[in-house]
C-alpha cells in the first residue's frame, strides 16, 4: 500500500513537468512581444536588449524553459508579473486562500445540497419530485454562470439591497458569490449522484439486502450510499480542484481578489508569466487532488485496495474503472 502511494506521489512529478512544458510552449509560441508590452512607449533598442536580458528572454526556447523550471523548483519563483512587477508567488499567497475559501464553501454546499437531492430523486424515481429536481438541474446546468451572477447581483444587491454588491467584507457578502459558484455545481452533482444511485440500487446486492429484511433507510445508508460514493469521489476530487482554482467569471463580477481575477487581468494584459503561473498552480492542485482521490479510492474500495496489497498493481485497471465511471 505504502509502495503504491509512494509510486503515485512520484507520478505527480512527470505530470507536472509535462504541464510546465505544454503551458510554457503555448505561451512561448504566442505572438506578441512581452518586452514590448513592458516597455510600451518607452521603447529604445538599448532598453529593449537590457529588458530582454533581465527577463532572460534572450536565451532561446530551451534555455528559457530550463531556467523557468529551475527557478520554480529551487526557489519557488514563478517570476514577476510584467504588469505589476510583483512576484507571482506573493500574489498567489494573497489570492489563493480567498479562492480556496470560496471554493471549499461552495463544494461543501454542493455536497450538502447536491448529494441528498440526487439520492432523493433516484430513490423516488419517476415521481413528481424526481421530475422537478432533474428538470431544475438541467436548467441550472444550462444557464451560463455570469447570467446567474448578474441576475443575483441586480436583484439582491441593487433592487432589494439585501446583500452587498461586491467584496468579501462581511458574512453577507459571501452569500452571492458562493451561491453563484454553487448552483451550477449542485445541478451537476445532483445529476451525477442520481445516475450513480440508480445504478447502485439496481444492483443484486441491494436486492440481497432487501431479502434480509433490512429497512430501506438502512439499505440506503449502509449498502447503497457507500457504493454510490465511490465513483463520486473522483468527481468530487476534480470539482474541489476546479472550484478552489477560483472562477474567473464569478470573481470578476463580485470583484473578489482571488485567482480568477488575477488570471483574468493577466489574460487581458497578455501577462504571460502570470498566466503560466496560474495554470501551473491549478494543474498542480488538480494533480494533488487526483492523487488524493486515488488514495481515497484505495482506502474505501476493498477491491482496489487488495489489488495493491498483492503488489500486482496495474494502473490500467484503475484507469479503466475511472474512465467507466466518468
Amino acid at each position, binding site marked *: 500500500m505504502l509502495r503504491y502511494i509512494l509510486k503515485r506521489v512520484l507520478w505527480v512529478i512527470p505530470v507536472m513537468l509535462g504541464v510546465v512544458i505544454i503551458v510554457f510552449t503555448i505561451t512561448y509560441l504566442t505572438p506578441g512581444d512581452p518586452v514590448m508590452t513592458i516597455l510600451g512607449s518607452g521603447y529604445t533598442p538599448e532598453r529593449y536588449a537590457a529588458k530582454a536580458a533581465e527577463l532572460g528572454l534572450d536565451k532561446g526556447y530551451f534555455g528559457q524553459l530550463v531556467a523557468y523550471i529551475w527557478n520554480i523548483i529551487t526557489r519557488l519563483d514563478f517570476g514577476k508579473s510584467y504588469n505589476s512587477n510583483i512576484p507571482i508567488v506573493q500574489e498567489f499567497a494573497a489570492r489563493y486562500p480567498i479562492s480556496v475559501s470560496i471554493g471549499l464553501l461552495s463544494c461543501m454546499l454542493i455536497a450538502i445540497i447536491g448529494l441528498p437531492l440526487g439520492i432523493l430523486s433516484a430513490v423516488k424515481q419517476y415521481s413528481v419530485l424526481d421530475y422537478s429536481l432533474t428538470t431544475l438541474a438541467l436548467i441550472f446546468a444550462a444557464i451560463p454562470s455570469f447570467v446567474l451572477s448578474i441576475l443575483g447581483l441586480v436583484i439582491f444587491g441593487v433592487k432589494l439591497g439585501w446583500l452587498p454588491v461586491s467584496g468579501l467584507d462581511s458574512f453577507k457578502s459571501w452569500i452571492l458569490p458562493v451561491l453563484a459558484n454553487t448552483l451550477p455545481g449542485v445541478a451537476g452533482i445532483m445529476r451525477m449522484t442520481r445516475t450513480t444511485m440508480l445504478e447502485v440500487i439496481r444492483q443484486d446486492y441491494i*436486492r440481497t439486502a*432487501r431479502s434480509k429484511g433490512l429497512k430501506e433507510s438502512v439499505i440506503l445508508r449502509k449498502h447503497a450510499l457507500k457504493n454510490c460514493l465511490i465513483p463520486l469521489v473522483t468527481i468530487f476530487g476534480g470539482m474541489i480542484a476546479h472550484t478552489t482554482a477560483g472562477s474567473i467569471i464569478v470573481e470578476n463580477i463580485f470583484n473578489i481578489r482571488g485567482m480568477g481575477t488575477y488570471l483574468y487581468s493577466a489574460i487581458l494584459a497578455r501577462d504571460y508569466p502570470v498566466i503560466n503561473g496560474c495554470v501551473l498552480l491549478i494543474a498542480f492542485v488538480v494533480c494533488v487532488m487526483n492523487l488524493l482521490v486515488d488514495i481515497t479510492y484505495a482506502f474505501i474500495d476493498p477491491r482496489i485496495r487488495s489489488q495493491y496489497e498483492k503488489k500486482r498493481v496495474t494502473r490500467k485497471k484503475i484507469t479503466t474503472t475511472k474512465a467507466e465511471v466518468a
Partner: protein
Amino acid sequence: MSLLEIKHLSVQFETRDSVIKAVNDLDLTIEAGQTLGLVGETGAGKTTTALSILRLIQEPPGRIKGGEILFEGKDLLKVSNEEMRAIRGNEISMIFQDPMTALNPIIRVGEQIAEVIRLHENCSKGEAMEKALYMLETVGIRPERSMDYPHQFSGGMKQRVVIAIALACSPKLLIADEPTTALDVTIQAQVLEMMNKLKQQFNTAMLMITHDLGIVAETCDHVAIMYAGELVEYGTIERIFHNPRHPYTNGLFGAIPSLDKDVDRLRPIPGLMPDPAALPKGCKFQERCEYACDKCRENAQMFTEIEPGHFVRCERAVRGEI
C-alpha cells in the same frame, strides 16, 4: 395448513407502451419441510413468482395485480411493510441466481452474515458475529475468512456465503433462484449436496427454481412446470418424471441428453416463448405444440387434476388424446 399457498397470483410489468404479463393466475402450494421444484425456460416468470413471495418486485414498473400469497395462513400481500421485513430473511429467505453480484463488494462477508442475524435474533454484535462464523463453518468456509471481502472469494464460495446468509436465521422457507446456474459443474454438485444437507439440518421447506431437470430430480419432492407465466403441470417428482402429460413437459424431457435412455438425437422444442406483452388467446403453448388443434387456439386451458396430486393444463392431455 400448508406452509405457503399461492392463489391466483398475477404480476404485470407496465412500461410506457406495453403491459408485460409475467405471471398469470398462478396457484402453488409448499408444505413444511418439503421441496418444490419450479421449472421453466428463461422468461417463464419463475423469478418473478419468487420475488413476489418476498414482495421484492420493483414498483414501478412491476405490479402485483391480484391473488393471495398465504404464508402460514397470513396473506403476505396484505401485511404491513414492517411485518414483511420481519418475515424476510427470518422466515423466508432467498438465494439469488448470480453469487458474483449478490454480495455487497465493500462489506466484509462476516458482517454481511451477521447483519441478518442481528436484525432478526435480537442479539448483540458479538453474538451475531459468533453465529455468523458458525454459519460460515457450516457452509464449509474457514471462519477466519469472515474478514475478507467478497471479491477475494471464488464463485462457489460466494454462493456458500449467500447460502449462509439465507439460512442464518433458520427460515421456514428457502427460495433458491437457480442457485447453481452461474457455477461450474463440479461446484454445482457440491453446492447442491450442501443445500440438501442443510435443508435436512434446519428442516427448511424449499422452493427450488431452476431450468435444470437434473437438479430437480436430485432435490425436489414436487415439481411445477411453468410456461409463459402459468403452471402447465404439477405433481410429485415421480409422476412428472415417469408420466409427464403436458406436451411442454414432454418437450423438456426430450431436450435433455440422457445416458441411460437410448435416444437417437435430442429433440429441442421448436420456436420461442410467446411475447409476454402479447400472449395468444387460448393455450399459450399452441404455437410450439405439435398436438395443437383449433380448440386449443380458441379456449383457455384449465388446470385440471388428472390423477390425485397431478395437475395438467392441457385439455387434450386430460382427455387422454396425447
